[in-house]
């Protein structure tokens, strides 16, 4: 069977019941999807399969013969980050980073289906994604900023740009 990952087609040698997550990470070396809970609950392994977000840990790879998979590496490149990647950088929306690729994939799918900057709608769209650093506010800030069409200055973070002197030497 073959699988196209971020535009590049691969022959897959793993057995058909191997998870897409294992194939991506162990066979193809695409490591942005994280092996978190491996039972669908944390969202860290989420990738886009033929246009829809899916949990790679729940997907038997044999069901995907000929499918197209996009991981966070496929959203942009280091020299040309996608607006969502720029927003996560500018809004400091990653702490440890473990949930970030799953969050970005879910947010990308949300925005592509016409998602707005409504914070409740963003929360609902990201409801299957757990951030153990509890950095949800900045993640939602970042997604809302892209939905609004903001542009981002990557030389500063939103926090530093908005920092005010609270009366002491800071």
């Amino acid at each position: 069977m073959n699988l196209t990952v971020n535009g590049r087609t691969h022959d897959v040698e793993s057995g058909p019941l191997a998870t897409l997550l294992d194939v991506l990470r162990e066979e193809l070396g695409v490591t942005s999807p994280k092996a978190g809970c491996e039972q669908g609950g944390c969202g860290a392994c989420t990738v886009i399969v033929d246009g829809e977000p899916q949990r790679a840990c729940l997907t038997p790879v044999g069901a995907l013969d000929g499918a197209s998979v996009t991981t966070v590496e496929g959203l942009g490149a280091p020299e040309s980050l996608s607006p969502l990647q720029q927003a996560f950088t500018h809004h400091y929306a990653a702490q440890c980073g473990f949930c970030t690729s799953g969050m970005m994939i879910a947010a990308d799918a949300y925005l592509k289906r016409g998602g707005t900057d409504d914070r409740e709608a963003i929360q609902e769209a990201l409801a299957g994604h757990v951030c153990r650093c509890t950095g949800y506010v900045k993640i939602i800030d970042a997604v809302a900023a892209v939905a609004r069409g903001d542009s981002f200055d990557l030389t500063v973070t939103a926090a530093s740009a908005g920092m005010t002197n609270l009366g002491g030497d800071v």
Partner: protein
Amino acid sequence: MTQATEVLFPTSADEAVAQFGDGSGVTVVGGGTIVMPEITYGRLAPTKALVLSRAGLDTLDVSGATVTLGAGLPVARLAELAQDVKALAQCALNVADYEIRLQATVGGNLCAGEGQDAPRGDLQGPLLALDAQARSVGADGASTEPLEEFLGRRAGRLLLDVTFEKPAASAFAAIDYAHTHEYTVLAVSGVRTASGETRLAATGLAGFGTRLRSAEAAASDPERAGAAAVADVSLGDDALASAWYRERTLPVLVRRVLGELEESA
């Protein structure tokens, strides 16, 4: 383990039935949301896996007042029934999260065994209240029977589809946590038919979903119906809630559903 497993990808419902055979030793994989973690964690080592993703069972047919849901229909697509069968669409939206609803299937939701730590089978509630008919195959051949009977003997059978009539009104109420990835603690679904019959069912119980027949008999008096519902169910303690808590919240949900049905009438 994976190399020794015979994995089949039927490309039609007929082929799925043929490959399922008498069901002996067959592990059915619908959306994978329940089976795949069992395999990953070594709790299940299938000798023969029947993966239904290409079997053409992902159908949603509405023909006049009759609705048929293929067993492979993603749970997310039940949102399309929001106008006609509100309880089913609401219940579906209450299942897990956006991505899981895209992957999980109606058949998997109905057929999965009882969960060890939390109740499963949310869709059993509205489909029991809708008095759905389940079409399946197994060792004794093909059968179409009330979902309630099917659920009692679903192990070893391959569900093909469920069919029901659109109700005049329906309602859904659930107790669940404000949490990112939630399981339903307890839920009640209700249906009012065109002839005025009221049917109620609950999920989040010990075992699978249950019709609340004592409550149905008292449906004209929501207070009495709520109290009567407790006699219809078997409640358990699990990671989400105690039987004590469920016993006290079940009457509340029954009253809410009956109240909403009354408003819809």
